[in-house]
């Protein structure tokens, strides 16, 4: 599980993550929403320990990501935005590399790589260099890499980005199936996705948490309204010059 308290990150004079706090328990699938630039990716990078917070703490499975980064990262499967991978490696070489770095050898390594290749339907492209793959396959390679060690925590930055509707559905199914045993944070721009698989929603605006509730409560804020409109009401400040104040939950 993930315990985030008072995270702050500044880029020069700009406060990109402003006192963000929340918890994610086993079995939760937390949907991270927000306009571009609101601080979603930065928050995820703080939780994985890739960036160092200027204030606050993030504890993953009992490990402080700043004090004990390696132990924390052992428990985390992370899919970064744009699914980075080494372009000149083949899918199999890449997954073998990730498996070895995570400490798996020979039989166990082959078993785990085989498992995620099947789970993410990568068998057809297993010996192709990653740079030759389509966006959809690249995304699934990144997803496979995050699932390889069967981590208790999954942090996924736009996991269905660039996938066609069928692939989106498949990825959501995989997440839904695995989530019973895991704590999952996924960020997305697709509000329907949040309703489809998430049991909690957090909306970031200007680096601050403006909403932290269930999708049902979120929909109930403006009964009958489209999710897009509710979202826009809450985050309008990101577009307009004057930032919106935090809007308290109504019901």
């Amino acid at each position, binding site marked *: 599980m993930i315990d985030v308290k008072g995270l702050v990150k500044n880029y020069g004079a700009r406060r990109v993550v402003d006192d963000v706090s929340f918890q994610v328990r086993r079995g939760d699938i937390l949907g991270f929403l927000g306009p571009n630039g609101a601080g979603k990716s930065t928050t995820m990078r703080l939780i994985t320990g890739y960036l160092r917070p200027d204030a606050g703490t993030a504890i993953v499975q009992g490990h402080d990501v700043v004090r004990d*980064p390696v132990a924390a990262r052992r428990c*985390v499967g992370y899919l*970064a935005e744009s699914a980075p991978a080494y372009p000149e490696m083949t899918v199999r070489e890449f997954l073998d590399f990730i498996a070895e*770095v995570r400490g798996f050898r020979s039989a166990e390594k082959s078993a785990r790589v085989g498992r995620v290749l099947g789970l993410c339907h990568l068998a057809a492209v297993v010996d192709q260099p990653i740079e030759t793959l389509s966006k959809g396959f690249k995304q699934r390679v990144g997803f496979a890499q995050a699932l390889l060690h069967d981590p208790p925590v999954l942090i996924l930055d736009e996991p269905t980005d660039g996938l066609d509707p069928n692939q989106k559905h498949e990825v959501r199914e995989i997440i839904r199936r695995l989530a019973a045993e895991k704590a999952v944070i996924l960020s997305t721009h697709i509000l329907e996705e949040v309703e489809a698989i998430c049991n909690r929603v957090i909306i970031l605006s200007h680096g601050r948490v403006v909403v932290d509730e269930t999708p049902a409560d979120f929909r109930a804020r403006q009964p009958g309204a489209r999710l897009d409109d509710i979202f826009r009401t809450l985050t309008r400040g990101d577009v307009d010059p004057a930032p919106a104040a935090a809007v308290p939950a109504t019901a």
Partner: protein
Amino acid sequence: MSPILPIFKREFLGYFRTPVAYVFLAVFLLASVGLTFFVSQFFKAGNASLAPYFAWHTWLFIFFAPAAGMRLWAEERRSGTLELLFTLPVTPLQAVVGKFFAAWAFLAAGILLSLPLALTTEWLGDPDWGVIATSYLGSILMAGAYLAVSALTSALTRNQVVGFVLGLFANLVLVFLGWSVFNAALAAVFPQALVDALANFSPTTHFDPFTKGIVDPKDVVFFLSLAGFCLCLNVLVLER
């Protein structure tokens, strides 16, 4: 179950996954051996010694070490894989060490590929294999030092070319500090003691004994500590 070995393996094989490695090795061998035969007049000198070959290394590595080292970190930054690497259970030190040794192994392979030169000299004459062995050792150590500098400059930028140029200049400065012509010019202005002290920081000063068959611990320590210093800085730069 250290992650250093997979990182080493990935980086080393990564060189050979693109044509770049083969081009690099070919150009390096052409340059080093070509200079030996055509500029140093290897045959004309009539000496069964590889000294003319090794004499060029101090200068060649100024270009070739950054060429091998420039992709170590700049490419990771540019392709976004730095974020992947540092969200795996790997410390910056392990990543720096793994990548450095992979690049060093690659350069060492390039240097050792000139062994046929040594073998033909053996067939034609009677070279001193002790001197040849120490020369190869010194050359590989020196390449490691230049490479550590280049890896550091690569970590400072996301552009491989900038990394290359920075590495080239840094190595050039180091070599100049020990270059006799430069030293003579400096000696005209500064006290000799200072000039000698500066020369001590240069690979030129420390590589010479190896080419004469002397393995002085002082010189080995120089190369290893220069490399170690740059690798430490490399870790610091990445930990930001």
